[in-house]
Structures are given as C-alpha cells and as structure tokens.
C-alpha cells in the first residue's frame, strides 16, 4: 500500500510540475502577481512530493521488499543496512530518482532563498526548473519506474553489484548530483534572462552563489569518485579518461569557466552574453553526461541497464533543452545590451584568457569522448581515443592556464600593471623552482620535467598566498596593522586563494605520483620479502574469511622500515556469493601523504601468488587538493556579498538593481 502511495505521489508531482511550468510564466508575461506567486508554492510542494516518493523507495529497500522489481534486482536481505540504503541509487531507476530529488531540492532552495529576486525573474526561473522537472518525471514514469511490482514476490533479491557495495556509493553519487544538477539553476537563470530579454550585473550576483555551490559539490563528487575508483578497482589508477569520467569532468571545466566569467560580469558588466551562453553550455554538458551514462551508448560500471527506449527518451530531453536554449539564445542574445569595455592587461583580461583556455579544454575533452561514436556513425570506421590522447592534448592546454593563474588576482580591474605583477610573481617563481628542485634532489633524480612539474605546483601554492600577502600589505606595514588588514579581507579573497592553492596541491600530487611511483609485480610465497618505497613487506600467507555476503581470501603482509615493524596490511580477493562476482580489495597503507598499495593477483600452481605492490608518493595530495578547493568554495560562499538573501535586510535594494538594461 505504502508503495502505491509513493508511486501516486510521483504522479501527483507530475501534475504539480505541469502547473508550475505553465501558469507562472503566463503570470510573468501579464504581470499577474497571483499567478507568479504560484511558482514558489508549487515548487516547494513538488519537492515535498518527490521527497516523499523517494523515502518510500528507500523504505522499500530498507525492509527488503522484494515485491518491488527494482528492489529485487538490486538488493539482498543479507546486505548491511548502509548498502541497502545506498543501493537505492545504485541502479538506473533509483539514480534517476536521486537526480529528480536533487533537481526539486534546488528548485525549492531557489524558491526559499530567492525572496529578494524580482517577481518576474523568480517566476521565470522556477518555471524553467519546472520544465526540466516535468521532462525527468515523464522519463521516470514512462521508462524507468522504480515502483513496478512483482507477483509473486521472490524470497531473495539478486544483490547489488559488488563493486558498488562500498561506502563510496553513499557519498559519490549524491555529491556528484548536487554538482551536476546544481548547474540547472544557472541554466534556468540564463533562460529566464533570455525570456525577459534583459540582463545586468545584479543577475551575475544572483547566479554566482548557485554556480559556486554547484561547482564546490561537483569538485567534491569527482574527487570522491576518483578516490573510490583508486581503491576499489584494484590497479591503483586514479583517473582513466573513461567516457563516464569525462562526462562529469566537462561540466566541471565549463562550470569553472562560468564561475570566472560571472565574476567579470558582476564587477565590470562585460562578458554578459558569453556568461549566459556558458551557463547554458554547462548544464547542457550535465545533461549530455546524463545521456551518455544512462542511455547505454557507453558501457561501464555506471551504465546499470541498457534499454533503447530510455536512450531515445533522454536524447529527446537533451535535444529539447539544449536545442531550445540555443535557439532562444540565438533569437534573444542580440537584443541583450552588451556593455563594459576592457583592456587586455587587466584582471578581466586574465579572466578572459582563463575562459578561453577552459572552454577549449572542455571542447577537447568533448571531442575526444564523442569522436569515436560520431566517426563510426558517419563512416563505419572504428577508432579509439584514450588516455594517451587526453594526456597530451589536455596537458598541453593546462600548462599556460596554470602559469597564468597567479597573475589574475594580482592584476587590477580595468587596467593592470603587468610589470608590477611580474615583479611579484618572479619571487614566487624563484621560490617554487627552489622547492621543486629540492624535492627532486631528495628523491635522487628522475626526469628533469618532474622537477619543473613540482615547481609548477609550488608556484600555484605560493602564488595564491602572494595575493593575500600583498592585499594585507605585510611587507610594507607593521605586522600588527597588516595582520588586522589580513583578517579584514573579504572571505571571497580567502576563498579564491584557497581554491587556487588546492589546484597547486593537486598538481603536486599528480606530478609526484606519475614520475616517482614505483611498481613491483612478483610472485610471492609465504615468508618472502619485497621492497617498495623504502619499506619492506613480508608476505605471511593467505587465509580464508567469510563476510556477510561474500567469501574472501586475505593475504597478510608485515611492513617494516629499517628492520623495525611499522604496520601490517591485509589485501584480499573477494567473491560475492549472490552474483558469484570476484573483486579485489587492495590493501592500502598511508604514510603521510604517500601510500603503499598492495593488490593480489592469481594464485600460482606452486603455492605462490602474484602480488602487485605500488609505492605512490604524495598521492593523497591529488584529492587533498580537491578538498582544499572545496573548502575555498565554501569560504567564498559564506562571503556576505554572496550570501543569498543577505542584502534583503535592507529595504529592497534589489528593485533598483534590476532596472531594465535598455
């Protein structure tokens, strides 16, 4: 019964979404406040209905109600409770429900925090959000309904894909979706601006917190996914340029560009049309990612099920929203008044360079991901585009961008002093080179490029601090005064410094692990010893073990350094009983930011077993950098200037800001 109520709530949500997608926009056109006021009410109702429906599905998973087809296919009564619950979105139908839940959550947040938005803009934004909601509700109800019953109900479920039985599933998809779907708000703001035919700096100020929030969550989601793949897949890689990874990386790149161009628009009123286009493109890439992953065009651990009708449905949604937005853009954009002038050597000039390179990088990743598909469709020829291509093309594009990062904040708006910035950077670059070569020396050599790569990482870290240093004026003023100034800097200054610093930390991790990683593949018998990264590992033998829904063979290793035992590590090969599916559970030991990664291979006939041992220096910096970026995002988000609703305490300054920009 409760299942049917949940199902019905979803149908009711569709009806509500239809109302929210038609009436408010009419109200906005006619200036009818009653109709416009319907938007926030309907949006919040919509969220409540979807949230209820989602909880019903979660409940069905929690109590292992196998009369539901979806639960039977993806759950098992013996699974630990945490995986039963995370299993809700560990399948196609459930993950679309999570998508929808996130979408309606963001709509509801806009409805709640957008009190100070002009009425028409708010009504239009919520309407566009409702259009997207309608599309996805239709998709779920017609092609991916999680509330299908089975009669008679089977006694036991088929278990969740073992790779997904991990705590990563609890964090990675929700964070990723908060990012992915968060960009829908930027999209809706852009489309609403196009519908209204006017746009100004205030628009950028309203969009920026949403962009920032979405970007921050997407950063966290991608980093989490990367770490999950690293420890779960068992061969120690952390980025594969897999089409599915690219699908999440493209909105991140475009979103990063959007974050920076919205800044220019807010401060200088320049790049208006470009920012609108970028907002549309970012969410289009999110939709494209959803299409690529969900349609089964690409097969991977993320493509839970392939069904042609779903692929065509998502393709239709994709074409409607992307096509529609671009048509609207082509029609309306010329009417938007472009404003603001800028000199090439200025902060806005630097941000334009940032946008240029980020957009080209996004296009490169997009081309590389889709090229084999398109080429095969057009000519029938099959080619592969994999990691070596992306490393080369994307890597080359990133070098000038990373070199330019510290310049941006040091240049003034309008007319920057390149020479002055160079004088400041030059100290930073010198320090970075020294640090790079010092580490290089400590590692006893390697390719010289490695030292330069490390220097690049240090350069980004020091460069981000330089901006704060000069803004507080530490060199010239007395320490006490400078420190007071430092404390008084706006939070957004700290936010951007942290984000740029995080980028540097990630670069350090990537360079260190790619150039100084060591790998040992060997056959080991109990009692044998292997050396890696200055540690020595003794293999103590294998042991059988039984988990709640798997059996495993665990290998035990004692790790010592200079003769003293420092740690021990288990590494195992599991078989999940329900699906008879093998997985490797790598043994990972953390020493500072570096890790020892031990993974078991095949048993040999003579009693030995193949063991793979990697020493991964500074690998944690890769994700640590992402965490720093994320903290930067939150710090920036807490800046008073951006805090949603903060200016509303005064008497409606917003009305003034939204004068038509004719």
């Amino acid at each position, binding site marked *: 019964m409760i299942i049917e109520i949940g199902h019905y709530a979803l149908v009711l949500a569709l009806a509500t979404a239809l109302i929210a997608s038609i009436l408010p926009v009419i109200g906005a056109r006619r200036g009818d406040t009653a109709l416009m006021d319907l938007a926030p009410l309907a949006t919040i109702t919509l969220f409540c209905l979807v949230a209820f429906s989602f909880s019903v599905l979660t409940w069905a998973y929690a109590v292992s109600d196998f009369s539901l087809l979806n639960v039977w296919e993806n759950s098992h009564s013996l699974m630990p409770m945490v995986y039963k619950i995370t299993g809700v979105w560990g399948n196609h139908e459930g993950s679309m429900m999570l998508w929808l839940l996130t979408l309606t959550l963001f709509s509801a947040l806009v409805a709640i925090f957008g009190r100070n938005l002009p009425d028409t803009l708010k009504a239009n934004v919520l309407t566009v959000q409702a259009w997207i909601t309608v599309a996805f509700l239709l998709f779920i109800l017609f092609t991916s309904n999680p509330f299908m019953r089975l009669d008679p109900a089977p006694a036991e479920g088929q278990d969740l894909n073992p790779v997904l039985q991990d705590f990563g599933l609890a964090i990675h998809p929700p964070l990723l979706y908060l990012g992915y779907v968060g960009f829908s708000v930027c999209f809706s703001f852009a489309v609403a601006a196009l519908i209204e035919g006017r746009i100004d700096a205030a628009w950028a100020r309203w969009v920026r917190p949403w962009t920032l929030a979405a970007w921050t969550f997407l950063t966290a989601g991608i980093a989490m996914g990367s770490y999950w793949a690293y420890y779960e897949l068992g061969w120690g890689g952390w980025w594969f340029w897999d089409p599915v990874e690219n699908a999440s990386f493209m909105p991140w790149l475009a979103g990063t560009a959007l974050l920076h161009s919205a800044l220019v628009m807010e401060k200088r009123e320049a790049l208006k049309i470009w920012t609108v286009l970028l907002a549309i493109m970012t969410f289009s890439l999110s939709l494209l990612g959803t299409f690529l992953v969900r349609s089964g065009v690409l097969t991977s651990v993320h493509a839970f099920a392939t069904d042609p009708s779903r692929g065509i449905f998502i*393709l239709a949604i994709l074409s409607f929203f992307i096509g529609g937005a671009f048509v609207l853009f082509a029609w309306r954009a010329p009417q938007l008044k472009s404003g603001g002038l800028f000199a090439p050597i200025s902060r806005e000039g630097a941000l334009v360079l940032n946008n240029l390179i980020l957009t080209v990088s996004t296009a490169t990743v997009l081309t590389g991901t889709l090229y084999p598909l398109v080429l095969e469709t057009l000519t029938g020829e099959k080619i592969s585009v994999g990691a070596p291509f992306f490393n080369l093309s994307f890597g080359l594009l990133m070098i000038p961008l990373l070199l330019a990062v510290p310049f941006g904040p040091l240049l003034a708006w309008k007319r920057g002093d390149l020479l002055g910035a160079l004088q400041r950077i030059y100290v930073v670059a010198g320090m970075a080179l020294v640090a790079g070569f010092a580490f290089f020396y400590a590692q006893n050599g390697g390719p010289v490029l490695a030292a330069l790569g490390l220097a690049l990482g240090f350069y980004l870290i020091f460069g981000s601090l330089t901006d704060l240093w000069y803004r507080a004026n530490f060199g010239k003023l007395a320490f006490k005064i400078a420190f007071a100034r430092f404390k008084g800097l706006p939070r957004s200054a700290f936010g951007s410094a942290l984000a740029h610093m995080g980028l540097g930390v990630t670069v350090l991790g990537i360079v260190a692990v790619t150039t100084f990683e060591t790998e040992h*593949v060997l056959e080991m018998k109990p009692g044998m010893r292997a050396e890696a990264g200055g540690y020595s590992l003794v293999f103590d033998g294998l042991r059988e073990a039984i988990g709640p829904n798997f059996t495993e063979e665990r290998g035990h290793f004692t790790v010592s350094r200079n003769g003293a035992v420092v740690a021990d590590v288990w590494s195992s090969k599991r078989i999940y009983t329900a*699906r008879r599916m093998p997985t490797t559970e790598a043994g990972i030991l953390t020493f500072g930011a570096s890790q020892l990664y031990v993974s078991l291979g095949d048993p040999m006939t003579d009693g030995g077993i193949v063991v793979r041992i990697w020493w991964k220096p500074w690998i944690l910096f890769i994700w640590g950098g992402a965490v720093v970026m994320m903290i930067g995002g939150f710090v920036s988000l807490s800046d008073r200037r951006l805090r949603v609703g903060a200016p509303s305490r005064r008497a409606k300054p917003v009305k003034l800001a939204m004068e038509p920009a004719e």
Partner: protein
Amino acid sequence: MIGQKGQTPSGLPAISPTRGETGWSRRLVTWLSGLQAVAPTVAPYSLPPCGGDGRQARGGLYYVLLILAVVLTPLPALAVNPDEVLKDPVLEERARNLSGQLRCMVCQNQSIDDSNAELARDLRVLVRERIVGGDSDTQVIDYVVSRYGEFVLLKPRLSGKTIALWSMPAVLLVVGGFCVFVMSRRRTRSGVEKPLTPEEQARIDALLGK
C-alpha cells in the same frame, strides 16, 4: 596464435574491429536505438572480467549466464604477470610503455597494460615477442595495427579521419583568441570615442550649474 581466423586463445568469439559494412543511415538507426555502438559484438556474459572491477556487470538479466561464466573461468589475474616480464629492464620499460598505448579490445576503455583479459595478455606477450625479436617501437605498433586495425590504438594516428580530432584544440584556440582580440578592440574604440550627445552635454552643464 591470436588473429587467426575462427579461433581465439581464450575461446572468445572472433571480433572484427572494423565491422563497417553497413550504410550510414542504418548505422545511425542502430546507434539511436541505443545498441552498443562502442562495445564489440560480444555478448556481455561471455566476456572475461577486466581488472576484476565488474565493469561488465549487467544486473539481473544475465544472472544465470554470469554465474556459469564465472564458475567456469578461473579467477581473474591483474594486468601484467611476473612470467610475462622481460629480463632486460630497458626492453621491459619499452614494452610497458607500448602496452599503455594499446587498447584491450574486449574491455571498456582499458589499455592492455591495465587489463587482465586473456586477449590483453596475448597482446602483451605478442608485443614483448616483437620487442625481443628486435623490432623498433614503431614497427611493433605497425604490426599490431596491421592485425587488429586502428581501433587498437588509444592515441589515434593523425590521418584524414582524425584530422578534426587533432586540430580541434589548436583551431579553437586560434579562433577564440581572434574573437577576443576583435571584441576587445571594438569595445575599446566604441566605448572611448563615443562623444556625448548635445542633450547629454546640456544636462551635464545644467547639473554642474554652468
């Protein structure tokens, strides 16, 4: 040996990497209907697991066949095995480098260096045989491509059909840079040189109390 017609060492169905015999419209329809355009024409349940990561897992549909497949095949190994490793570290380094650029044809987007599929193992051994036999890196790649087609290369060669792929970043950078240049010049000129209209001048004069 691998590549001989009708028989593959792992008992996998033979895969033709270039199965482009149908017209484009037909293929478009096939692609649109969501059929695996990327995946080879091997039924999923007959694939050996790659990397032990379950990238081939398909959910309930192939459940029974999956059980059979897993029960009948031994546990997967991970990528390079000790018995494959060449004695000479320089040659081994070259072999590893080359394996990183060759695709495991039955896996999803994995290089033969990362994959543990039988076919990947055979290719790794093949690459090492050629290297020991005195081939240069280019000769090894040419040989593998001659047998398996361009599909096996993770970094496609520059040719007529990949020119768009390779030139895309450079072309976009140049075009984008040009647009920015034109835009900044136009803005500067129109912004700076636009004189005040007589009415605006009059208003300013009035405000300044002239």
